[in-house]
């Protein structure tokens, strides 16, 4: 049993933390958020050079990490600095799928991903799918080696700016059936794709994507026909751990800002941190922050275990992060008062980011139900 980071991860954490502390303040972030693409190519490139993306892939895939604790280390720092660049979409969701089930040609993209040269998005969610991972109604029909996609994908993070889309579509089975789902690599300029991009609360962009008779070659299929679900679930669980770690980092910053503010701000002639009611609430938040840290460690540590154990821990983590995230986010704002409501004060971003993570890859109730179901199974 050892809860210390390895030397390599410690170095990556240190250098990433230093880099972001120097480069990523609230003003910079707000400019990035309001920019055309919603992210900074420059920052992206520099993070790639620091090894941030390579740390998310195993050595076999050309990276130098890829384990749960690598993911947690990177995303805790991204969360701590409030980074809005969609590394999760490119490197974990799309990149992870290519590395896991892509053929040798497709896997050639991983090197470019690690180098920070290409951006990807996973177009999976649909208007009616909510958080059900196996619900896919977009269809893929194959005729003479050509595949035709029809359907609609919703709230596709990074979908408007990605150079490559991975689109899920159903080849067989009912709408909810895990079996029968395939993944396809689709260039965004393919005819029949209508992509409408919009800003997300808390940073980043997403796209609504309509697929109207989109023709792609059969070689665009990623992995075996209709059997993509296990890989999808696996990569989503890795991304879910990343979201937990990101939220953890963001909560650390929210608490640090709150504690600093409680010490500085005076009301009725005393620092507000000297008021016992706020002290005890702060203590409760600090306790919950440790709970959030522990459940993230636990999920990261079980990411390489068998499916049921892995998913049960991941759902436990995302549930608890959602629960604690709401508490820390709301309490940080409340204990600050009005200032926390302003866009130009750092906390505003962190509070939004933490709460909106509850809307990504399953919310706290969804994962609680899943935790219960996995335990009963």
């Amino acid at each position, binding site marked *: 049993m050892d809860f210390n980071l390895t030397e390599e991860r410690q170095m990556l954490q240190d250098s990433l933390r230093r880099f972001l502390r120097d480069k990523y303040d609230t003003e910079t972030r707000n400019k990035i958020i309001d920019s055309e693409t919603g992210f900074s190519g420059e920052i992206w490139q520099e993070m790639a050079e620091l090894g941030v993306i390579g740390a998310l892939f195993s050595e076999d895939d050309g990276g130098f990490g890829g384990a749960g604790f690598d993911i947690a280390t990177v995303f805790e720092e991204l969360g701590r600095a409030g980074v809005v660049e969609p590394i999760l979409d490119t490197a974990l969701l799309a990149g992870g799928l290519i590395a896991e089930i892509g053929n040798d040609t497709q896997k050639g993209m991983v090197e470019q991903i690690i180098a920070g040269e290409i951006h990807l998005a996973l177009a999976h969610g649909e208007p009616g799918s*909510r958080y059900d991972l196996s619900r896919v109604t977009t269809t893929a029909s194959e005729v003479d080696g050509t595949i035709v996609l029809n359907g609609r994908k919703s709230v596709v993070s990074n979908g408007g700016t990605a150079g490559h889309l991975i689109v899920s579509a159903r080849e067989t089975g009912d709408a909810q059936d895990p079996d029968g789902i395939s993944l396809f690599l689709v260039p965004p300029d393919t005819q029949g794709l209508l992509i409408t991009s919009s800003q997300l609360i808390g940073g980043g962009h997403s796209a609504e994507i309509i697929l109207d008779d989109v023709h792609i070659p059969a070689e665009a299929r990623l992995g075996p026909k209709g059997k993509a679900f296990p890989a999808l679930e696996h990569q989503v669980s890795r991304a879910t751990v990343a979201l937990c770690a990101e939220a953890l980092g963001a909560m650390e910053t929210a608490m640090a800002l709150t504690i600093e503010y409680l010490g500085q701000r005076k009301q009725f002639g005393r620092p507000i941190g000297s008021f016992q009611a706020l002290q005890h609430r702060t203590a409760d938040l600090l306790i919950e922050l440790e709970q959030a840290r522990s459940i993230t460690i636990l999920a990261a540590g079980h990411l390489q275990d068998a499916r049921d154990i892995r998913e049960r821990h991941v759902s436990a983590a995302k549930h608890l992060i959602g629960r604690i995230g709401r508490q820390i986010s709301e309490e940080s704002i409340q204990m600050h*008062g009005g200032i926390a*409501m302003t866009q130009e004060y750092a906390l505003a971003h962190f509070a939004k980011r933490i709460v909106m993570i509850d809307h990504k890859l399953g919310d706290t109730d969804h994962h609680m139900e899943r935790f219960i179901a996995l335990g009963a199974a």
Partner: protein
Amino acid sequence: MDLNYSAEELAFREDVKQFLSDNLPAAFSDKVRKGQSLTKAEHEDWHAILNGRGWLAGNWPVEHGGPGWNAVERHIFEEECALAFAPRIVPFGVSMLGPVLHKFGNDAQKAHWLPRILNGDDWWCQGYSEPGAGSDLASLKTKAVREGDHYIVNGQKTWTTLGQHANMIFCLVRTDPDAKAQEGISFLLIDMDTPGIEVRPIILLDGSAEVNEVWFTDVKVPVENLVGEENKGWTYAKYLLTHERTNIAGVGFSTAGLESVKRIARAEMAGGRPLIENPHFAARLAKVEIDLMAMATTNLRVISKAAQGQAPGVESSMLKVKGTVIRQDINDLARRAAGPYALPFASEAVDGMNEPPVGPDYAAPVAAQYFNNRKLSIYGGSNEVQRQIIAKSTLGV
């Protein structure tokens, strides 16, 4: 004990319903339902419609142009307005300044300003809060120095809601710098067009620009704009804070909000069934609904006492805390119900732009409203201040 409204009250409720059905423009209620902001002109139109019926200033006495309602009637009116998604009455002139002028204004001030409020000639805003003074109003620093028949005002106000639309501001200013914290404060009416006033928007975390900073640099204010006595402003401010507490429980807003959540939860599917049938979501909904049933009854108890002439005491603070917690819980449920579609940022939800929304209509405003309404437990005397009031009045230590 009798939980039922009297026949007269029920008839009045029907009147209000009918009036709203006949006179509330669908374009306005649509915007309110979708969480969109009204333009200045729309606000003014709605005030004019209400004023035409004599119902703009529900808490004003008849002699000043009010309808002479008691607490129950005011409650019925507010509740029906909320349920019909009528725009809020902009409170600064009608609900806040009005009562202060009724009680503390001189005859000239009453004659001049009160009709202008009803007629919409002035758009008032509030200059209370200052940077660094939050719930501790007594520590304010904006100074007014008497020079001849003017005060010269210097300082800064903040959290001035809808100040961008206003031509008048009522301010608390320090007129005696040597007095103790709560003394030496005066209540001034200031024309926003006076040279030396600058209004800067504060962008809030939901992207909205409804609050402002107001800067005063050597602003000349005629002495006749002093309300009441110099250095007695704190008394008037406290009086106003009490009057601001009308409808503090927000039962109508919560009831309407709960209906919205149910609409979303009926439309959203989770695991192949409507979300509203999901037991965990249904449990969250039921708990808030039951909290609201209880709180609405507490509210009626207070209103019923008020209609019998008893002033509410610590109950106002209780209703403030519970009422805002319930509204925030409902906002939280709405954002949960919307699922992934809560993520896209819908700028029109808050500042009147008109891009087409991403995803279902109902999802567009929910996250912004959730974040924006974090303010409910902060302003108007934070919930911490209210808890302190409740504890002090009970524990006496």
